[in-house]
């Protein structure tokens, strides 16, 4: 196994180990060893501080030329301390000039200045002889302070709206790293999350993957808040994340942070059962490049990106193209009795992406970030109820985002816009395809004040206070009228370190929800104990809510029935009862977690939780038309010509759910070049129907949509010869979905049980790096065993797909 690199596997951990080793060696005066270790760390995972420390080590050992070289490379990263470093460089260059100007001299006998840490070992001169003049190592004060902070330590920002170690987080967290992304070969962002414990991934069409956390996944999953660099991409119209509307590709992602459990205390509505934050690569960092792939059923993926700096200005631009075919078709060719919303019944999505971001250093005023993105194309979505299978022949999603980060304040404003045309994928001739046009404009602003108060001794208080405003403007054919909402929120996050090893984290947020016409409160509290420096026991209690989406709040849609002239009129605002509202979905969660990152070769994470979930929103039962409806909503719809026979809409479920679950995960690096992970998820649901009336009970069944058992395991291998491999195995146990369907005989919407067999999904990739790691080719296989399965009872039948991929960086 001589080709295996003498290193551990996970890049961050590997780089971290080298960094630690290098800094220790330098502190011990073993400069060569230390520099070599730091260079390895930098090679694995570049970080400017490493360059600085290498330069400083060279300076300490007297190699001023190399020192200047590394300091200059550090300066190329446009650091905050540019002026100070320039002064160091100028000082070193002056010393070099002075040394060159001096005549040759006898070997130096004066002692080198001692390093800041114990002196390095020096060999006694064997044969003193005249030598060319060498610069004198500068005193420590002239080469700056060593950057000893653990720059490769795992850090997350999503759990508290500030950088922190997962060990200090009040929730269970996980991170998908850039390496995980690259080695997996996966090109769909939500698929990247499948490897994590407690995450429910459901690919229902070729382009639609739904993500939920700790259960309650559904078509158009609406209980997980997805952020891109802290910007919510939640589509308020549907109450879901439409991943294809993101303007980024997998190549643009630095890492993905996942916070499990209710997050409304920090993020307000919709962070119901967790938050996913996609952190993109920073402007000016990394190389430029291009990547592409082509495979089964003409699946295509392409990306190119460029990054650069000009003084204090950094920028990054990216573009991409994706073509995703359906897994299976609804309609064969030649059907005379149906018509389709789009001609191409193979395409599931076709998107182009453009993304441009920049940042401008403003000195002591902080950093200004700005940018925008566009995703445009077509998409197929399995929705709910009559919108079971819809296609968007056209969508365009744009954002303009800006933020200012100072020492005390973070200010962020963004504008998200989504425009789309939609139609049913297929319907019988004479039946409406329910064409619609939607435009959603969201303007979201947030101001956060950050302060850290020492309380004496080890006690500190880390405080964040923020205010948020969200403007929503939705114009949609499916709504009763154009709708505008103004949401306001105030939140507080306080981390109080009492005395090691104890800490308390408290969150509280209050939101004004205009549809509900009330304030919604979301508290969260956690108590942390650190049995050791790198381990945490965490106990937390949290609540969250999901407000009704625009569709659920203001729907007005006549839905054609199999009887051509008749319709079921779905209404959010009930004309016969305008005061009716659908309440927010609610969750109360208690969690006990343990995280151990003590070892360099193994990390362990576990959590036990109890969730009480109630008031879930579902399609309302049919309210048959009565004679009394004549004055309000009983008449023919003038736009469609349909006559109402009944009314639908939305309602809160009478049933509640007690969920008992747990996650346990291990990631280890047992031998060099090898990274192994495994995790297990348990989810037990007890359905509580005690609040249901006999009539409601007649329409519901037991719901076991979340698998009781899920197992994920995988191996990543990187070799010195450039061959990389990864294999991920996912096992999902049987599910029994309670899906609402229309029973035309009973003339009602009722739940029916749909069994979904357990399935195993194996994905693998083999790649080869060459041209000094600048180029790479790979074969990626999704479901390589070809085990046909569905991930939702109504989902498409998934088979095997293979893709040939290539990447080049410059």
């Amino acid at each position, binding site marked *: 196994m001589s080709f295996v690199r003498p290193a551990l596997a996970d890049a961050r951990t590997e780089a971290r180990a080298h960094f630690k080793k290098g800094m220790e060696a330098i502190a011990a005066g073993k400069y060569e060893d230390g520099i070599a270790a730091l260079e390895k760390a930098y090679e694995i995972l570049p970080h400017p501080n490493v360059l600085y420390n290498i330069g400083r080590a060279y300076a300490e050992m007297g190699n001023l030329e190399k020192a200047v070289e590394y300091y200059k490379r550090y300066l190329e990263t446009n650091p905050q301390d540019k002026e100070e470093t320039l002064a160091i460089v100028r000082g070193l260059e002056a010393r070099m000039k002075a040394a060159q100007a001096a005549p040759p001299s006898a070997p130096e006998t004066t002692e080198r200045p001692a390093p800041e840490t114990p002196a390095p070992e020096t060999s006694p001169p064997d044969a003193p002889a005249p030598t060319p003049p060498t610069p004198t190592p500068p005193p420590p004060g002239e080469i700056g302070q060593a950057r000893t902070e653990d720059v490769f330590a795992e850090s997350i920002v999503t759990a508290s709206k500030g950088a922190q170690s997962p060990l200090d987080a009040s929730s269970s967290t996980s991170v998908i790293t850039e390496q995980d992304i690259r080695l997996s070969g996966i090109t769909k962002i939500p698929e990247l999350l499948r490897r994590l414990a407690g995450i429910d991934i459901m690919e229902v069409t070729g382009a639609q993957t739904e993500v939920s956390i700790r259960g309650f996944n559904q078509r158009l999953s609406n209980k997980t808040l997805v952020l891109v660099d802290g910007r919510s991409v939640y589509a308020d119209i549907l109450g879901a994340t439409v991943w294809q509307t993101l303007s980024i590709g997998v190549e643009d992602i630095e890492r993905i942070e996942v916070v499990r459990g209710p997050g409304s205390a920090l993020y307000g509505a919709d962070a119901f059962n967790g938050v996913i934050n996609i952190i993109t690569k920073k402007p000016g960092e990394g190389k430029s490049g291009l990547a592409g792939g*082509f*495979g*089964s*059923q*003409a699946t295509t993926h392409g990306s190119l990106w460029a990054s650069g700096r000009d003084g204090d200005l950094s920028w990054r631009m990216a573009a991409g193209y994706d073509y995703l*075919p*359906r*897994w*299976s*078709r*609804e*309609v*064969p060719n030649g*059907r*005379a*009795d*149906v018509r389709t919303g789009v001609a191409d019944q*193979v395409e599931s999505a076709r998107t182009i992406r453009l993304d441009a971001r920049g940042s401008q250093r403003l000195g002591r005023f902080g950093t200004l970030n700005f940018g925008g993105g566009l995703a445009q194309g077509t998409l197929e979505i399995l929705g709910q109820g009559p919108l*079971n*299978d819809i296609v968007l022949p056209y969508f365009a999603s744009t954002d303009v985002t800006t933020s200012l980060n100072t020492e005390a304040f973070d200010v962020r404003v963004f504008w998200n816009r989504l425009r789309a045309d939609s139609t049913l994928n*297929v319907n*019988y*001739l*004479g039946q409406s395809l329910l064409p619609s046009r939607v435009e959603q404009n969201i303007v979201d602003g947030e101001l956060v004040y950050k302060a850290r108060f020492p309380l004496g001794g080890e006690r500190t208080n880390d405080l964040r206070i923020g205010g948020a405003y969200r403007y929503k403007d939705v114009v949609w054919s499916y709504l009763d009228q154009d709708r505008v909402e103004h949401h306001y929120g105030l939140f507080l996050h306080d981390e109080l370190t009492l005395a090691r090893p104890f800490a308390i984290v408290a969150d509280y947020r209050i939101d004004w929800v205009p549809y509900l016409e009330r304030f919604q409160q979301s508290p969260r509290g956690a108590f942390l104990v650190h049995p050791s420096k790198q381990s945490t026991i965490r106990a937390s209690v949290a609540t969250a809510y999901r407000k009704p989406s625009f569709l659920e709040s203001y729907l007005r849609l006549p839905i054609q029935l*199999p*009887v*051509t*002239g*008749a319709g079921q009129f779905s209404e959010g605002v009930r004309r*016969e009862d305008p005061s009716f509202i659908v309440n927010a979905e609610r969750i109360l969660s208690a969690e006990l977690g343990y995280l151990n990152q003590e070892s360099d070769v193994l990390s362990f994470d576990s959590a036990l939780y109890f969730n009480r979930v109630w008031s879930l929103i579902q399609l309302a039962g049919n*309210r*048959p*038309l*009565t*004679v*009394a409806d*004549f*004055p309000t909503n*009983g*008449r*023919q719809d*003038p736009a469609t*010509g349909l*006559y109402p*026979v009944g009314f639908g809409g939305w309602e809160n479920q009478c049933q509640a759910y007690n969920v008992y679950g747990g996650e346990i995960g291990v990631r280890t690096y047992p031998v060099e070049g090898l990274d192994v992970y495994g995790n297990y998820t348990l989810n037990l649901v007890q359905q509580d129907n005690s609040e249901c009336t006999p009539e409601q009970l007649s329409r519901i069944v037991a719901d076991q949509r979340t698998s009781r058992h899920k197992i994920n395991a995988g191996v990543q291998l990187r070799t010195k010869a450039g061959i990389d491999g990864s294999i991920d195995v996912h096992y999902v146990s049987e599910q029994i979905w309670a899906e609402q369907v229309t029973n035309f*005989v009973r*003339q009602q919407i009722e739940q029916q049980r749909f*069994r979904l067999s357990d399935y195993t999904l194996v994905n693998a990739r083999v790649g*080869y790096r060459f041209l000094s790691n600048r180029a790479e*080719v790979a*074969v990626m296989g999704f479901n390589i065993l070809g085990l046909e399965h569905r991930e939702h*009872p*109504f989902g*498409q*039948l998934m088979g*095997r*797909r*293979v*893709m*040939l991929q290539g990447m080049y960086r410059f």
Partner: protein
Amino acid sequence: MRRFVLFLIAVIAAVTACGDVPIDDQRSDKRLFPPRGVIRGTVTYVGPRPCSRNGNIVGNAVILVFDRRNPPPPAGLATTAVNFVAVPGNVLFANEPRTVADELFCPPEDETIEASAPFTIAPVDPGSYVIAAFYDRRGRFWPTFKFRNMPEAGDLAGGFIDLEDARKNEGNLAYTPIFRPVDVGIPQPAEPGEIPDFTIGPNGYVADNIPVTIGRVVPFTRPYFHPRRVDPVTGRDADSSELIGEPLRSPANDEADPLAVPILAIAQDVQILAPPSRPVPETLTAYQRGFPSLKLVWGVARTELEDATDPAQPFGFQIPPLPPRGKGGLLVFARGGSIPENPAVPALWPEVALVKLADDPRRLASDPRPPADPQSLVIQGSVEETLITGKPPGPLVVIQGITLFDDSLARTIAGPVPAAPETAALRDHLTVLIRPAALCFDPRRVDLGAVLVTPHLRGKSADATEGQRPLFDLDAVASHPRVREVVQGCLPKGRYAISLVYPTGQAWTVPNESGGCAASEGVVVPGDRVGTCSIKPRTVLLSQGSRAVVEIIDANDPEVCENHPVPPECLPP
């Protein structure tokens, strides 16, 4: 080696990069669209310029699809279409001028225009269909409710009909058009004269270019009525459907709900007199009195008239506020021919049919739940029956009445009876004799005819001088197209709705939605003039309510039904 690996990779990618994806035919939600039928064509309107209001053309071309095996009255018994579509007037008359005023404006009817628009009806099961159509000139069509789901006077009717025959009968107000069949699918082998089964291939089936013509003005209103019971001895009205009934218990009204007491109860072994061999006024009177009978009075109860005709209310019945004295809106005229069982008795319009309602188990006192069908609307044999009984639909059971002219069988036979629906035919009520026989149809194959069940084949003659005689000419009845077999047996017990049918297909049925409250509207709260609903208050016309039924009750002589039980063809599964 490296080149080989790259080559292999490229080959794998090329092989798997097939462009198409498979058809999914295993989906558990049955969301795949199975091949179905489509009826597509053009509807052509020939008639006066349409009415308009608020910048919109008022009304729709309503195209109704009926199973040819069970067409709508008078040829069949279908009460609801299997499918329909409404082509809005704004589409049909896209280029017609219209008023922007709030008030309804109807141009003078002296000018005839023609307008066409395409229509499509889907999905349709394989089968053979007939298409009826009308233009709802006043925009009053409301398909969900029996009281507004048919054409009214002034509307224009038509369908996919024999236009040549229709032209020949122009001016015949009682004309029944000949509907042409629309076959959807591929016909399967069948007995001669039978309507075959049809199948649809994997690509679906489109019955295309179906021309639907609308052009015949509907000359009269629907036969609005409410039932009364007449004392057979005194001849006076003994009860009326708008009155609160005595809380009498009956098998189908086990709770003795006073609002569900039938206006007429008939024992399932009802015995009538046999027709006299000497039909003189005395014997005919005796014969007539042997029948259970109903008096069907034009319109609604007097106190309900204002609400029933108020256009601001949902009913909008076309009942003139001041009918000519002694006249009503019921047209009683000759159908041509005689009743099947007696060639001496001419058949008259309107046809009277009692159609059995679904047995509502919640009307039993032992069931604490409110009635599942509080308005007595659901016909046995219909798809909705399952909602009431929880069982598959039972047979379609019909008891036919004999329409009398001026309340007298003797007058009916003696005549003269108006031959057409003219002014002389107008009556403010009619008397109908209830035949002691029921036709039991398989609801899926009404075209095959019914089992006719009658508790007795012979009876005492209406002529006291005669003894036992046959109740009817068995051969004549058995040869009737709607009868495939005559069986002696008791009548199926239960509640029966009452329908009047005109040759134009216009009909009126009680009970209907105007007379009761749906479950979500609450229960009926009777008032001085009209009733209301307890949850969603609105006018309730009690004369059209759940008392307006005939109930077949237990036999007077149980031995009759023991010897001749109700045949299985007449019983729910």
